[in-house]
């Protein structure tokens, strides 16, 4: 979209008041989309903010799909010999619950924040490759729909989320569910990989002047580490998925044990991806919490460099611990010992973060907003999950725990307590940034407390039933093996089911809150007295983010523009010298003239549409493969032949004083 900005006179009505934009051609006969309103403005957008919002909305929808699956699982296990689900449906339910929550909720929700916030936090006007960003979004959405379309096409995948082969080969899982799972994850995997390349380039290359790496907001840092993890983990799962696809659809032999195949091959490939995946899930949440805690403690983040480097250390060590998921697989004593020690070692950088968060709050002026409550909730619940994690690192103890509900308890405390609570902290913290309204705090508190009570009721008892020996992934348990007294399986299973329902209500309260808050008055520019660069612009930001690309002189730049250090010597005493509104108004007063933004494009959504067509073709007919490939090739050439920013003729004539234009550095 050619944004014409001639401040100060025309800036408020830049889009509507500008001379009509003439679309340039693409492919010689198609005109580029220019809509700024209606569905076309969303479908063909390359704006990182709209893309971020779409990521978030679709991820939230999948959160409730996955939640519904979880509730069905828990209802089945609420009593002995449950009758709600058949064994087959139960297998599909837990597989799809995990797949949906991990790949279609937590990862894209983190991607939503990364997309929306990273360019704002580093003072850029968009990501490095806006069209690739749109491609990632649509591949994720179509991939998610593709996986879930298996429900109406013969049933979902049923091999568990790590889909161990050969158990996932055709003889053991004859429906097409696993095929949908494999191909769908290939699609979302491409989305993640493309987005990783895009965001790494953005962070490394498009920082505002003065924004050195050690001045970057901590969420951007954790986002960067996460994207590197994705960059190197996704290709490994891609190999595993391709091998399984060839095995199932083209009769390859990779996992045919009768031919002498090694069943550990899949396990290694999967977990070399799967363990970094754990950090892909929690690191963005850690980043969010590291933003929220300082703001609501009125203190800078304690030990910023330690938080940065422990995050990077988690990223590195995270690639060296995958085999702790395989202690029961018979790897031999040396491998087990090495991976056991490495796994204990990764607790150290994680512990560093928890210490830093605690010390950030220590002596601070704490404000218990909903965002802060979720952040504190993360510290507490994640620590519980981390501690049970250390018990798995001890291989002999892990051998007892493998495939029991104790594992389920552990990773729910880590993923829900560490990942989801952090994401909710981010939602409450950044909602006014993204939508210009603060979510209702009373409803927010209810949302938080019901969710916290629900999660502990749901996942806490799983420690007990797991150590009592109830296996995970069993569709029933029987009364005569339930035990007696305090450790009675029936009682704790029942509590866990109640907890799951409470948790579900807590999550629904969030939707209620969004509804209740829809008519809230506009939020102030700086509602939380925030510290980082994303607040140095209006809420919601204009399409070009910043009227002037900010000069960065410090970590917590926005804070330092509002507060001046009046302390003497080594004493620091910050006095407020400006409000957020004044700082932002000052930026607007010095706005850049003539900002060109990248233009919307049809090709990302067309290309993203072509790939699931190919994927359906792999399952059903090679004709569809050919059709999908034809669309894909057309889209790629259309993409390559279309300049990222519309032609010069699309823009307004040069301003009278002929100032040099300030464009966004974009390509592809």
């Amino acid at each position, binding site marked *: 979209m050619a944004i014409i900005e001639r401040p100060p006179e025309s800036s408020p009505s830049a889009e509507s008041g500008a001379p009509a934009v003439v679309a340039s051609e693409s492919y010689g006969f198609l005109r580029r989309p220019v809509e700024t309103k209606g569905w076309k403005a969303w479908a063909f957008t390359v704006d990182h903010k709209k893309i971020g919002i779409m990521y978030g909305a679709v991820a939230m929808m999948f959160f409730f799909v996955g939640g519904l699956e979880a509730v069905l699982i828990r209802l089945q296990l609420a009593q002995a010999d449950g009758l709600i689900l058949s064994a087959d449906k139960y297998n599909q339910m837990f597989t799809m619950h995990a797949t949906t929550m991990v790949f279609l909720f937590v990862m894209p929700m983190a991607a939503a924040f990364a997309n929306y916030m990273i360019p704002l936090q580093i003072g850029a006007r968009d990501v490095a490759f806006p069209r690739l960003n749109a491609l990632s979004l649509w591949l994720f959405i179509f991939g998610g729909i593709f996986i879930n379309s298996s429900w109406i096409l013969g049933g979902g995948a049923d091999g568990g989320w790590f889909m161990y082969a050969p158990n996932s080969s055709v003889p053991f899982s004859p429906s097409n569910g696993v095929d949908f799972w494999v191909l769908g994850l290939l699609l979302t995997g491409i989305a993640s990989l493309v987005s990783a390349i895009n965001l790494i380039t953005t962070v490394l290359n498009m*920082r505002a002047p003065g924004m050195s790496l050690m001045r970057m907001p901590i969420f951007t840092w954790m986002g960067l580490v996460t994207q590197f993890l994705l960059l190197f983990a996704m290709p490994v799962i891609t190999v595993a998925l391709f091998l399984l696809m060839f095995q199932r659809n083209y009769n390859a032999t990779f996992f045919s044990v009768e031919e002498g195949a090694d069943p550990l091959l899949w396990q290694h490939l999967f977990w070399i991806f799967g363990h970094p995946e754990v950090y892909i899930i929690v690191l963005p949440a850690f980043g969010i919490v590291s933003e929220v805690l300082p703001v609501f403690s009125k203190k800078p983040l304690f030990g910023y460099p330690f938080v940065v480097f422990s995050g990077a250390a988690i990223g590195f060590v995270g690639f060296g611990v995958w085999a702790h998921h395989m202690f029961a697989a018979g790897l031999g004593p040396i491998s087990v010992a090495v991976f056991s020690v490495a796994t204990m070692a990764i607790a150290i950088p994680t512990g560093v973060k928890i210490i830093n968060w605690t010390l950030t709050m220590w002596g601070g002026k704490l404000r218990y907003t909903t965002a802060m409550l979720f952040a504190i909730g993360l510290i507490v619940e994640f620590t519980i999950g981390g501690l049970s994690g250390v018990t798995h690192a001890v291989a002999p103890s892990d051998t007892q725990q493998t495939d029991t509900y104790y594992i389920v308890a552990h990773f729910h405390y880590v993923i829900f307590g560490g990942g989801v609570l952090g994401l909710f902290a981010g939602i409450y913290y950044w909602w006014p940034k993204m939508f210009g309204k603060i979510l209702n705090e009373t409803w927010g508190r209810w949302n938080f407390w019901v969710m916290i009570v629900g999660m502990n009721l749901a996942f806490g008892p799983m420690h007990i039933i797991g150590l009592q020996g109830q296996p995970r992934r069993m569709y029933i348990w029987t009364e005569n093996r339930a035990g007696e007294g305090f450790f009675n399986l029936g009682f704790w299973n029942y509590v866990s089911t109640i907890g799951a329902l409470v948790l579900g209500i807590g999550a629904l309260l969030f939707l209620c809150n969004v509804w209740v808050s829809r008519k809230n008055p506009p939020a102030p520019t700086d509602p939380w007295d925030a510290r980082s660069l994303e607040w140095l612009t209006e809420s919601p930001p204009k399409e070009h983010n910043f009227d002037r690309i900010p000069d960065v002189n410090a970590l917590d730049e926005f804070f330092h523009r509002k507060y001046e250090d009046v302390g003497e010597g080594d004493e620091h005493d910050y006095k407020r010298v400006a409000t957020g509104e004044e700082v932002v108004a000052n930026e607007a007063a010095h706005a850049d003239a003539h900002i060109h933004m990248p233009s919307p494009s049809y090709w990302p959504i067309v290309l993203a549409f072509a790939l699931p067509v190919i994927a359906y073709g792999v399952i059903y007919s090679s004709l569809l493969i050919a059709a999908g490939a034809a669309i894909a090739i057309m889209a790629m050439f259309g993409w390559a032949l279309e300049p990222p920013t519309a032609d010069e003729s699309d823009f307004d004539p040069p301003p009278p004083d002929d100032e040099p234009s300030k464009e966004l550095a974009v390509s592809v």
Partner: protein
Amino acid sequence: MSDATITAPDEHEPIDDGLDHLGLEHQTSTGLSNTKLAMWMFLGSECLLFGGLISTYMLYRNRSGTGVGPDQLWDIPFTSASSFVLLMSSLTMVLAVSAAKRKDDQRTRVWLTVTALLGGLFVAGQVYEFTVFYREGLGYTTSLFSSSFYTLTGFHGVHVSVGIIMLMSLVGMLLTGRIKGDKSETIEMVGLYWHFVDIVWVIIFTLVYLIPA
């Protein structure tokens, strides 16, 4: 409000290099262009893709069951020749990039075409080789060895083919003047990809063909 908190504006004008209106050539934080940085990231990721496939092959190379094994199949002189062809295509790719840097469009087109032809010759050799192996009884589903061999070399062959399509598209776009922005950088990007695919072949050739099973 205090001026001290606001820094002097506009010390970071973009470099005016005549390409400004295209939004392609700008100062970046690292000094490396976005496209080039992204291409290196992509190639880094590709290393792990081939790493996984090569590991799978190395695990299964001796598991040919009752079917034919590598020792009965390899025709080292033939594969050496096709490897040589592919390596030479890296040389012509370098010549194409060098010509593009000198803004010599005609030579660029010639060398790009030669590179694509050499790549095509390599793929043709691979197709021929696969046909021979198939006739000697090595189907895709014959054994663990055959599945992993065809998958690894097939993935590489697809990468070369995609490279050829990109090279031919470049030639076409040069002829019609459709490359926007810095032409030599666009060609260099395809060059990076092409060299990467060549280097992967050196590793595959060594591990798969030269080291006895």
